[in-house]
């Protein structure tokens, strides 16, 4: 009897201990092994102490850019190792990041996905001042000014995306429609979609595909329409853009918003599996598409990129598009001994070496020069025609989000407006009026 009790107690304690330990497990990725430089060559400078930094990132398996950056940096600075910590992707990334920063458990470095939440991090004192790093970089690194507040820079961009018009050359050939020539207005785009639909559309194949995000319509309205400013509380300038999109939806040249949302369609599958001849999407899709061809998730076909349709011919020479930069910032709670190493990394990501590494996997870096462009277009699978090169190299990219305390709230209101309009539950005029009155009511400070 006595022995049995002891065994029960023992088992119970063991189970309890196991439960506690499983609850404590972290989700950190196993670190890349450090390779400290041996002091074999007789150099006067002593070997620096190895430094380990942690950086937050997402979807490590399918997003190679983070590892590319940290590996390239490690090769150049072997005594600094950066371990990647996987966070949730999508909108949840910022939620998780903010929670961890508030709890004091965030990594040393973290990625700023877009400008929408930059204000939150900067205003909340969660970004270290890196003006000294920014001072080294000037014209070639695009997007740096977006991270400046009161004359100080708080993050360094490594990537600057822009939206392009992706088109399937094989489908255009089959339909007998001329390729985009880089001088399209929105009316030209709608006309081409119409011709494509009549020639090869039917079943689940459409002339074009427009994804469900609010940025697919509003991003262009904000970048191209004269007098556009989401912080003004006046959204009339979006009306022509929504009218055009609804006309395309109603005429059947693209999948309706409702069908797309209830069936959770992905833009990668629509264009990649040749269910749409045209897709307006961000430059990140180039790398994703090439990776999917490799795994067989997308078909292999001839395709190209063209500048997005413009409002009118006045901007054909420097097409106006939009896109937010992606940056990395330093957590001010970082161990002071590691600050120098962290700043060294930020200096690296904005420079040519990192840009060439990123271009080599199809990412559009923030640093731009001819070497970067030629690396990008040397990549297998990237379309090499003259128009694609022009699209990549020449664009007037406006930031998707202005930096302000009101941005997150306004974008939330505009997101609700977008779903109300695109689902055709509310007329464009009514929805815009509702959004404007909500702005007046809710966006106070």
């Amino acid at each position, binding site marked *: 009897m006595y022995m049995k009790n002891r065994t029960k107690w023992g088992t119970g304690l063991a189970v309890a201990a196991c439960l506690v330990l499983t609850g404590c497990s972290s989700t950190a990725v196993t670190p890349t092994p450090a390779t400290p430089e041996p002091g074999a060559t007789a150099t006067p400078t002593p070997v620096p102490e190895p430094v380990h930094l942690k950086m937050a990132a997402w979807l490590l398996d399918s997003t190679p850019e983070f590892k590319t950056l940290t590996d390239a940096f490690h090769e150049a600075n072997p005594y600094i190792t950066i371990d990647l910590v996987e966070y949730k992707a999508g909108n949840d990334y910022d*939620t998780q990041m*903010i*929670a961890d*920063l*508030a709890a004091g458990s965030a990594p040393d470095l973290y990625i700023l996905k877009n400008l929408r939440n930059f204000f*939150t991090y900067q*205003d*909340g*004192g*969660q970004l270290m001042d890196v003006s000294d790093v920014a001072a080294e970089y000037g014209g070639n690194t695009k997007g740096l000014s977006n991270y400046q507040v009161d004359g100080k820079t708080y993050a360094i961009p490594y990537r600057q995306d822009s939206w392009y018009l992706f088109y399937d050359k094989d489908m255009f050939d089959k339909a007998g429609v001329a390729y985009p020539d880089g001088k399209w207005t929105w009316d030209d785009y709608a006309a081409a979609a119409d011709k494509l639909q009549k020639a090869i559309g039917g079943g689940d194949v459409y002339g074009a595909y427009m994804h469900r995000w609010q940025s697919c319509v509003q991003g262009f309205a904000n970048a191209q329409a004269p007098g556009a400013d989401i912080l003004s509380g006046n959204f009339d300038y979006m009306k022509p853009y929504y009218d055009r999109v609804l006309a395309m939806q109603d005429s059947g040249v693209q999948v*309706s*918003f*409702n*069908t797309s*949302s*209830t*069936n*959770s369609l992905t833009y990668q599958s629509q264009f990649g599996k040749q269910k749409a001849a045209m897709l307006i999407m961000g430059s990140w899709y180039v790398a994703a598409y090439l990776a999917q061809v490799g795994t067989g998730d997308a078909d292999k076909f001839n395709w190209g990129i063209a500048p997005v349709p413009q409002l009118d011919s006045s901007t054909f020479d420097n097409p106006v598009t939009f896109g937010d930069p992606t940056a990395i910032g330093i957590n001010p709670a970082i161990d002071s001994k590691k600050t120098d190493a962290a700043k060294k990394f930020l200096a690296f990501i904005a420079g040519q070496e990192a840009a060439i590494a990123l271009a080599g996997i199809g990412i559009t870096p923030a640093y731009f020069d001819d070497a970067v462009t030629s690396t990008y277009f040397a990549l297998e699978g990237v379309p090499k025609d003259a128009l694609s090169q022009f699209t990549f190299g020449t664009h007037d990219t406006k930031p998707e989000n202005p930096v302000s305390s009101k941005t*997150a*709230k306004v974008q*939330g209101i505009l997101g*609700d*407006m977008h*779903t*109300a309009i*695109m*689902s055709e*539950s*509310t007329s464009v005029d009514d*929805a815009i009026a*509702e959004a404007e*009155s*909500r702005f007046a*009511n*809710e966006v*106070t400070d």
Partner: protein
Amino acid sequence: MSGVVAPWRASRAPRARRTLAGLTFILPNFIGFAVLTLWPVLVLFYMAFTKWNIFGGSEWVGLDNFARLVGDRSFHKALFNTLYYSALHIPLTLVASLGLALLLNTKLRGMAFFRTVAFFPYITSIVAVAVVWNMLFSPDVGFINQGLRAIGIADPPGWTTSTDWSMPAVIIVGTWREAGYYMLIFLAGLQTVPKELYEAALTDGANTWQRFVHVTLPCIRPTTFFVMVILTIQSLKVFDLVLVMTNGGPGQSTLVLSQFIYNKGFIDNEFGYGSSAAVVLFVIALGATIFQYLANRRTVEL
């Protein structure tokens, strides 16, 4: 031998020891509850009177947050949507779960299988439920609208893509999901109804409906009361189903209070303001529960 103990010792020591033993048993659970639930709720009541962006300290603003709620039209919409959801969801789920329980309260072979089937929606992943029901509700190609067109309804509703029909769609899925859970509770309650009462009613010439109203319903009153209270609170707090099915849309047609609180906190970064809305939700749920409690006591006393 040791049973002969002076009376005053027998009454005091064992009872104190029993109480202490009881408290020790619930202590592990209570510590978890106190640290992870009770303490944050108490902090919430403090936060509701502050302005806090989660980084650093909070700033006391008194009743400003509540004054802002009064004028906030999104809050009014969320409140209306929550009450709309509850007003339809509660009676529908009550009827469905009680109906299922009555149906499945027989001792036929295979009854365990049917009870499992009825309970299954409750334990399925909510994301899977949302994805599949969205496809079923798809206005052009979805199964439900195809069925409606087949029986002659030419213009079927847009369901989750229409501002008018999105809330009914969510209510349907919510009822489908939870009927099984409350069915189990009702099944347990139905076991307590004495069979002699049914036999007595039969000999008095009562038909099925009269037996149900005069024997079953009164006997399962405690179960019904419990189900009503829990169902009301869960309906007022509904969050995950709406979030994954419609994300508050289209527009704001399915924005419920819980999502309003979540948006204010995690998207707008206004934790103080979100907390004040949470306090309002708490007061509403508490008021509904107290009202039901009092109503139940009054009918029992009658």
